[in-house]
């Protein structure tokens, strides 16, 4: 990671040490070109040539309530509070155009990514650092064809109480939405983000490519909650990575209950400073025809780091691969992986692949995986208390999906709970 700031180094000093931005840009383009045909290791391969849409331009709105090119109810469906109440800022992107971005609290900054590149001459250093440009043809496509996205930064020591909200919305059929997000929590800062991704019901086919690079600096904290509400014709390939420095905390919650054609992601968090923490929670529901391959990976490369990966998956006839990979590279790290799957309907299936890997002896790493149907005795237990079989099943499923996310501020926890309930009601 020679592209990152060294301790005590200013952006300028670092810039001098590094190659020039021009060299870097040239190098990225070359690498992207070489990877343009490189399939991803997991998930069905997508023919990028089938997407042909030139997105329509959308009007920028100073206020959330002035956004005209999308139904406010649709925004709400993606988890956006259109009043902006209880939010420290908002970002809305329709197709490939930013239509609103505004921070409401001091200490946080929300820009578009291309805007950030124009505004700060050091911004480019945060691009393609934790996600590699030549990881596969999707990352390459984003670099080669241009992107938008959000650039969110919490200034040193800042703590926003309310979460920031971001919405990435697809309204044009046959579109490739290319998003590149940069999220930076400077030292001792705290940042909470809720991102909702959704598409118009009339979109019969589209592709979402989303790069997200998270930088959690010393003693900083990021909680990131992403809710996907796609439609059955969507293919989705998020590519995310995080780097967490000493004492930093990165919590990621990923919820997808609505149908999508195919979805594949395998984000990686690298814990590079002593005592850094990462936690991934994913909640997946796959209806018939849905193909999901979702994993989380944490590399613990500094002493006393800890990580937890929890996934809860339900198939209602779709297919789910739930992966998890923990790699312990330093002394006294502690990590746990939990994959639990419920098969409520046949037709798809579930594959849980938990992996543990260690390169040093003194580590504490464990995993548990369980796949099956709802235990009959749990249903009977609730029936004996007066619930019908359907009510009992629904109660157990709700409990199964009710992953308690530790370390969230109460405001956010309530908010997420609310969103989970809405998603569940429509999905199950």
């Amino acid at each position: 990671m020679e592209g990152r700031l060294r301790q005590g180094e200013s952006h300028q000093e670092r810039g001098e040490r590094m190659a020039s931005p021009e060299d870097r840009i040239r190098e990225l383009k070359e690498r992207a070109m070489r990877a343009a045909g490189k399939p991803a290791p997991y998930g069905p391969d997508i023919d990028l040539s089938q997407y042909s849409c030139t997105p329509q331009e959308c009007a920028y709105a100073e206020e959330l309530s002035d956004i005209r090119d999308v139904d406010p109810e649709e925004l709400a469906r993606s988890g956006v509070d259109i009043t902006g109440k209880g939010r420290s800022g908002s970002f809305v992107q329709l197709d490939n155009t930013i239509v609103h971005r505004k921070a409401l609290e001091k200490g946080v900054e929300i820009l578009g990514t291309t805007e950030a590149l124009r505004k700060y001459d050091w911004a480019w250093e945060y691009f393609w650092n934790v996600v590699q440009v030549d990881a596969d043809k999707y990352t390459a496509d984003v670099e080669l064809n241009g992107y938008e996205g959000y650039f969110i930064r919490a200034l040193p020591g800042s703590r926003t109480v309310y979460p920031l909200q971001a919405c990435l919305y697809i309204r044009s059929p046959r579109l490739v939405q290319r998003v590149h997000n940069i999220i930076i929590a400077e030292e001792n800062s705290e940042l909470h983000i809720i991102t909702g991704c959704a598409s118009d019901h009339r979109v019969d086919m589209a592709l979402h490519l989303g790069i997200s690079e998270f930088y959690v600096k010393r003693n900083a904290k990021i909680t990131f909650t992403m809710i996907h509400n796609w439609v059955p014709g969507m293919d989705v390939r998020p590519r995310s990575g995080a780097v967490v420095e000493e004492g930093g905390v990165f919590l990621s919650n990923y919820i997808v209950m609505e149908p999508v054609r195919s979805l594949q992601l395998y984000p990686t968090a690298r814990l590079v400073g002593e005592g850094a923490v990462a936690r991934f929670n994913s909640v997946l529901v796959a209806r018939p025809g849905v193909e999901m391959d979702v994993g989380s990976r944490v590399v613990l490369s500094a002493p006393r780091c800890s990580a937890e990966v929890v996934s809860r998956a339900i198939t209602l006839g779709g297919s789910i691969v739930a992966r998890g990979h923990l790699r312990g590279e330093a002394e006294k790290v502690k990590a746990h992986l939990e994959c639990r799957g419920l098969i409520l309907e046949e037709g798809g299936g579930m594959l849980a692949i938990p992996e543990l890997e260690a390169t040093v002896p003194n580590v504490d790493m464990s995993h548990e995986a369980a796949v099956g149907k709802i235990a009959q005795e749990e249903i009977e237990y609730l029936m004996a208390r007066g619930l019908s079989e359907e009510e009992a099943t629904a109660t157990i499923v709700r409990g199964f999906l009710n992953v308690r996310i530790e370390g969230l501020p109460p405001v956010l926890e309530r908010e997420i709970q609310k969103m989970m309930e809405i998603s569940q009601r429509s999905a199950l």
Partner: protein
Amino acid sequence: MSEREEEPRDQVVLEVRDLHVEVEGREILHGVDLMIKFGETHVLFGPNGSGKTTLLMAIMGFPRYRVTRGRIIFAGEDITGLEPHLRAQRGIGIMFQRPPTIRGLALRDMVRLCAGGEIDLSAMAEEMNLVDFLDRDVNYGFSGGEIKRSELLQLLAQDPRLVLLDEPESGVDMENLQLVGRAIRKLLQKDRRRTRTKCGLIITHTGYILDYVEADTGHVMCDGRIVCSGNPREQLEGIRKFGFEECARCTR
């Protein structure tokens, strides 16, 4: 129901008639007869494997316990074919010996489900010494005694007319026994006399529970049949002195 039409004290609440029950293709109960009247509590003794739990499960209506012959009548209605939740809704409640854990369902919410309406949850939890457990997943990591208390809390919320208790005192220490005893007294309205409406059927090996809850009648079950019905204290005495074998031979 108006005050005037109050049920007569000799009304039968539960009647089990010639009940034959099969588990996994094997007949376990070979014709059980039992009658519990308004406000009565009965205890059930019997050696391990004699079919006591099977009887309770069959009364609750779990599908694994298949009734092949006979009838179960509750409050005048034949419930032999009813699903468990419909029996629960009619007023039958059961305490599980080894209830499953339900992840993500807090005890608080479980108790609310049992109540089906408004209850004073905190007062009830206080009484059962379970305040700190309300936000834990139901039964997750609960000790034996905690499970008993949690089961009783749920039953108190459900407030059934007929309570089925399977060895409520087993694995409970002296201090908890008091708590458990008190809860069962409350469930069965033991502190009332004339207006008592609740019934109980309690399985016990030790009879300790009788120190807290008086029973009207005792039954001894051997090999899938009730071989003796009578005064529970005398039965307990007899079993203690002579064992179940004698008891089975005795045909009073």
